[in-house]
């Protein structure tokens, strides 16, 4: 029978199936960070258990780490927030005592888990990848089955190398055609979420297919798969092709030369069969997608840059309508207001969605030779890993940012969720390349607008949202 990419990944990892439809799925790679792991390690200890396969686990601290070079200079000990410091230290201690490989705070390979996984070659095509973090779907860009799990499951995977799972349904999101100039993978995924809604993918694994994804770089595919969860789907993925294989080649943890050809031959199988059946199909025309900006407090509250803020009174569904009214109140915006008239107080470029080298280059291309608007209090550029940082500096991008008045920081999750010192003040509007615009997400009372790196960069210069295509 014809199979989808997801079917193939599922079948290849099936350890045991139960009569009720649940199954034990083998996990190849387990990525660990400091926030969702301490209670799992504690659980292992209390039960007297050891990790099943230590060599399947890779850890790095990312959520709590400071991003200023001053605070980073003395490593863990230099973290000023004492509660954050304890959490990062706890990860170090747990990894040391269980013998788990960890890229510690000032290791150049440290970074955001979902940047580090693919970059290091720890996450590969055909794998199952889990992490106690909902943006784990990022790794699906490699043609892997990757999704977030809770802390109890972190402990379960450590103890058993397996996850108890139920097979999801298959959804194909096909975007055909070609993207216009200045339209990026971030705009594509925001447009998809606007179309299917934040619960549209609930219960599904999404495969992103069509010409737009075939033409897209690996980093772009990661941006798209990263936000599968904002469309409700735990897992997003893209079929393996030459782009995938060329990306993986030469990564530190990629298969050694003696296994390379064998690995590539297997990976090529991780594509949906031509006649595979999907339970749901969503199609978009790539040529019609414009730069996107979120206006509300849910990632589905998104419009194009040349649009205005929608009017709740036109919404027939009462629960949705009250959500829109509440969102406008929280955001301090009015129905009918033009997106280009929204002034920006801060700009955040970073997060597991958009902190890779291509994102850095896109920002540099926009801000080069320009100056940050005086009305923008702060514009920070936070690379996704120490290696992204080094690459950007080798290309001189840091100097372009600094000359334009942007701040160049150390790698971490930073203002995406504001667990460290990087946060919005109450009422501040932020052009952010992150993935969630929930109330308070980037700081108490903060107002997030999700955009692409190029759009965030343009907003930092203009002081309000602008169409980067004509900027």
């Amino acid at each position, binding site marked *: 029978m014809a199979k989808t990419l997801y079917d193939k990944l599922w079948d290849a990892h099936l350890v045991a199936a139960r009569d009720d439809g649940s199954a034990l799925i083998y996990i190849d790679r387990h990525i660990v960070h400091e926030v969702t792991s301490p209670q799992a390690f504690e659980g292992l200890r209390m039960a007297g258990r050891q990790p099943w*396969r230590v060599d399947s686990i890779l850890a790095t601290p990312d959520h709590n780490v400071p991003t200023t070079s001053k605070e980073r200079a003395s490593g863990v000990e230099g973290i000023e927030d004492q509660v954050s410091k304890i959490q990062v230290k706890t990860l170090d201690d747990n990894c040391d005592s269980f013998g788990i490989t960890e890229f510690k705070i000032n290791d150049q390979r440290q970074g955001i888990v979902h940047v580090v996984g693919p970059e290091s070659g720890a996450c590969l095509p055909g794998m199952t990848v889990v992490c106690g973090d*909902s943006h784990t779907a990022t790794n699906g860009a490699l043609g892997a089955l990757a999704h977030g799990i809770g802390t*109890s499951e972190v402990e379960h995977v450590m103890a058993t190398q397996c996850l108890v799972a139920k097979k999801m349904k298959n959804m194909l999101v096909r975007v055909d055609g070609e993207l216009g100039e200045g339209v990026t993978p971030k705009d594509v995924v925001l447009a998809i979420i606007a179309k299917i809604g934040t619960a549209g993918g609930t219960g599904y694994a999404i495969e992103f297919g069509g010409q737009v994804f075939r033409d897209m770089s690996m980093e772009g595919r990661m941006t798209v798969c990263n936000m599968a969860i904002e469309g409700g789907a735990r897992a997003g993925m893209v079929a393996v092709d030459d782009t995938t294989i060329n990306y993986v080649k030469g990564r530190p943890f990629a298969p050694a030369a003696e296994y390379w050809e064998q690995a590539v031959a297997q990976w090529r199988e991780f594509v949906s069969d031509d006649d595979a059946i999907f339970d749901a199909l969503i199609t978009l025309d790539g040529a019609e997608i414009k730069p996107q900006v979120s206006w509300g407090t849910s990632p589905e509250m998104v419009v194009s840059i040349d649009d205005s803020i929608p009017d709740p009174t036109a919404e027939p569904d009462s629960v949705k309508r009250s959500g829109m009214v509440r969102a406008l109140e929280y955001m301090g915006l009015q129905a009918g207001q033009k997106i280009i008239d929204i002034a920006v107080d801060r700009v955040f470029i970073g997060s597991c969605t958009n902190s890779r080298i291509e994102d850095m280059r896109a920002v540099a291309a926009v801000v080069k030779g320009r100056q940050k608007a005086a009305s923008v209090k702060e514009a920070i550029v936070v690379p996704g890993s120490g290696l992204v940082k080094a690459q950007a500096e080798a290309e001189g991008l840091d100097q372009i940012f600094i000359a334009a008045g942007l701040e160049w920081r150390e790698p971490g999750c930073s203002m995406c969720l504001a667990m460290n010192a990087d946060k919005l003040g109450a009422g501040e509007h932020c052009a952010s390349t992150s993935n969630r615009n929930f109330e308070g997400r980037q700081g108490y009372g903060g107002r997030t607008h999700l955009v692409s790196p190029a759009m965030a960069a343009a907003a930092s210069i203009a002081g309000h949202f602008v169409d980067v295509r004509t900027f």
Partner: protein
Amino acid sequence: MKAFTQHTGIAAPMDRANVDTDMIIPKQFLKSIKRSGFGKNLFDELRYLDEGQPDQSCEGRPLNNEFPLNFTRYQQASILLARENFGCGSSREHAPWALDDYGFRCVIAPSFADIFYNNCFKNGLLPIVLPAEQVDQLFVAMYASEGYQLTVDLEHQTVTTPHSEVFSFTLDDFRRECLLKGLDDIGLTLECADDIHAYERKRQEQTPWLFGAIS
């Protein structure tokens, strides 16, 4: 794990769609390395008028008197009535920990986000999916009657109102069994250790590059 069989308790409203896990438990409280103590910060940004900090006592913090959980009539609530897509957003298990620690045993909604739904079962918290019209009906009845109590029976998969109306719900047999008996997931999986070893040997033959690569 804590078992869940039957529970009767007061219902309280969380009357908005897409309640995300940042709303259930804001990020600053995720810095804790413990599993307990999150209840006082459940819905922190809605419950209080100031910004909460980790390791801070909540006594004396200004309460938002417009937030239902602060109403006297809902003080003893243990069943949360909610709307579509409850628990969307991050995978933080701190969300069910906070609901449980506050005293909720059950959340009833028309739909839940996948990861949150899954996390609930690991903590003896029962998420119940009922059709939107029935949830709506429960909201109306709850608002109309102070001290409105529901009885949830997991064995028979029913929710019973004070007027003896009975709503049935479904869930996976495996999850139901685990919750009814309070079974330890890990212990259960380890009973299949032979299967796991067998799979692993085969995997190692087929994909040798996945083993030992990062240690």
